[in-house]
Structure formats: C-alpha cells, structure tokens
C-alpha cells in the first residue's frame, strides 16, 4: 500500500466531502451573510481539495488528475471521516459539524506545516490560514446559537448529541498513520486530542451546551472500509456530470 497516497486522499477527501456538503447551502441559507459565508467556506475547502488531490495524483503516478480522483472514484475509494458525509440537516447541525472539524483542523494543519514532506508543508501552510478563520466563525456561531434562545439551544444540543459519536474518528490510527509518523510527514492524529478537547469544551461551555458522556466512535470512513449510506447519494449528485459526460470541461 502506498501510505503517502492514502494519507493525501484522507486530507483531500475530508476537504472535498465537507466542501460539497457545505456548498449545498448555496442560495438557501437562513440569511444572506450566512449564505455568503457558507459558499466562501465551501470554496476554500474545494481549493484545498485541489491541492491535496493534485499532490495525491502525482504521488500515485498513474496518470490520474485531481479531477479524476474527485469525480471518478466510487464510495469505497473515499477516505473522508464519516462525520463529514452525513447530511447537513439544519443550519445548527451544519455549523456544529464545521466547528468540530475546524477544532481538529487548525492544530492538525499547524502541525503539518512542519512536515518532512515539503509539499505537504506548503499545502498545510496555505490551508491553515483559511482553517483559522473558519474556526473563528464556526465557534462564534456555536456560541451564538447555543447560548441563544431555548429553541436554538435545544437544536444545538441535538446537533452535538448527533455528531458526537462521529467526532472520535478524527483521532483514528492505523498503519498509514504510523507510516506517516515514522517518516515525519504527519504526527499521529491522536496527538491533536488535547488541543481539540480544550477548544471544544471551552466553546461548548460558553455555548451552554453539554458534551455527551460517551467515548464511542463510529469508524470506517478514513479506511474506506465502511461509509454511511449517505455518501453514495452525495456522490451521485456531485459526480453526475463527469459520469454522464466523461472529460467534460468548462
């Protein structure tokens, strides 16, 4: 197994799948400012996807492009964590997911800036600037809605309860992670846990929300072993053009 390729797919697919889910809000967000914010966040994530999958394609060396990887792979070839592929549901759950991901992504990309692989370090250095203001916004929104009205608090608590069992997959570890650590390309994701806990619990307490008391974590996304039934539906929409008209370009 080409561990670097696997690692890059995980980075790229996380950005791609969350980017696509986020783009589903375009034109239907609850306020104009939020619509613009969601569309811009999606754009940043798709931009980061191009960098990660572009490098993945190069590392694979099979003549595939970033576009081929995004549009012509099927469900079990995707390596994103499950949390990012589940449907958006309401605005609160969308922003709670963004927050739980951003709280991981900021320390993670910061660590990758020091990767022994300069290409990985370059992509991380570019992406962490964007992840930082994504986290500013998602944390602010979690606080505003959590510590808002009775209705918004209840919805944010429900969102957190729903997403919590998915968050643990961010810290998964397998032989790809160990290979990356050995080569100094990336630290083990589990080493982000303290930073993540601090950000998440600090924000949740300001937001008047309670983290569920459970360490159970779904898994299967980052290895591709078991995705949820939702990813296939998402890909059907996302990939329809390239599947129907292979090679179509703007």
């Amino acid at each position, binding site marked *: 197994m080409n561990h670097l390729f696997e690692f890059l797919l995980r980075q790229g697919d996380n950005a791609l799948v969350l980017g696509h889910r986020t783009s589903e809000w375009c034109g239907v967000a609850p306020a104009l*400012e*939020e619509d*613009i*914010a969601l569309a*811009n*966040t999606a*754009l*940043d*994530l*798709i*931009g*980061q996807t*191009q*960098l990660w999958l572009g490098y993945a394609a190069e590392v694979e060396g099979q003549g595939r492009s970033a576009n081929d990887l995004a549009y012509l792979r099927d469900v079990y070839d995707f390596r994103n964590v499950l949390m990012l592929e589940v449907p958006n549901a309401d605005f609160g759950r969308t922003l709670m997911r963004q927050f739980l991901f951003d709280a991981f992504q900021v320390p993670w990309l910061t660590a990758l800036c020091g990767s022994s692989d*300069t290409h990985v*370090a*370059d*992509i991380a*250095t*570019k*992406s962490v*600037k*964007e992840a930082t*203001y994504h986290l*500013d*916004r998602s944390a602010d929104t979690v606080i505003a809605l959590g510590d808002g009205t009775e209705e918004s608090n209840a919805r944010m608590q429900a969102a957190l309860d729903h997403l919590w069992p998915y968050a643990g997959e961010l810290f998964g570890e397998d032989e790809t992670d160990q290979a990356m650590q050995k080569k100094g390309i990336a630290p083990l994701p589990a080493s982000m846990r303290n930073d993540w806990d601090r950000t998440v619990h600090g924000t949740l307490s300001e937001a008047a929300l309670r983290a569920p008391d459970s360490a159970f974590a779904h898994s299967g996304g980052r290895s591709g072993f078991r995705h949820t039934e939702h990813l296939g539906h998402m890909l059907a929409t996302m990939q329809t053009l390239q599947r129907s008209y292979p090679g179509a370009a703007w």
Partner: protein
Amino acid sequence: MTASPHISEAQVWNWLEDVPDPEIPVISVVDLGVVRAVSVSGDAVEVTITPTYSGCPAMAVIAMDIETALAKHGVPSVQLKTQIAPAWTTDWLSDKGRARLESYGIAPPQAAGGPARCPQCKSTAVERVSQFGSTPCKAQWRCTDCLEPFDYFKCI
C-alpha cells in the same frame, strides 16, 4: 503585434502593471502580489503566480489575462507557473494598491484584523457584519457614523 527581439524582465513587469485584478479592477495583479516572478529566456517568458485563497476562482481568469496581455505586446511564448509556497499574504499588497483599494471603497487589510477606518467618511467607528464577503478575500463591515456598509480586504 511585433515580437520584440529583446524582451527584458522589467518590461514584462511593466506590462503586468496594466493587467487588472478581475474582481477588483482598480488594482493590478502586480499590486495584489499574485505575480511572484518573471523570467525571460530569449523570446519565452515565464510568469509565476500564486493564489490569494486556495479556492479563488479568479486565478484562471488572471492566468488568461496575463497570457492575453503579453500576447498583445508581441511575446510569442508565455509559460504560466503556479506556486503555493510561500503562501500569499496581504503583506504583499503594494502601497499603491492599498491606496487604490481605499479610494475604490474597500478598506485595505490591517495587521490588527479589522479596517482602520471607513473608506467613505474615514470614521474609525466601524463594526463587523460578517467575516465573509463578495469574494473570498473580503469581509463585510459597516460604519456606525455614516451607516454605509463596506468591504474590508481580509488580512491573512
């Protein structure tokens, strides 16, 4: 359209000064800091550009505009290279670019993380509406004195 036998790098930089940013046409791609290098070898010109934000959709247009502008000046062969490191920063905006942004109504980026003043009435009483704006590089702010909303060029 006559190919100049001796194109100099300074000449190419000058030509690029006239290529406007497609989203903010009052500043050039050079003022914006996306042109990182120019190298000339005989008749062939290589221009290195870097994206502002990784998903900035203007990059494709910028690349096309640079090729078109250089072709107009008779450069027979233009090679465009994209690099992401070092990552673009608002520090690379030229002073001329910053001044033009403000007179166009866009507050230039400040290290403090927010605009120094309203680009319309120059009041310092400003507040943020949203971290995101009409393009990835901008945020929405408003002036609480003249009540005008305005774009702020985000600092990254």
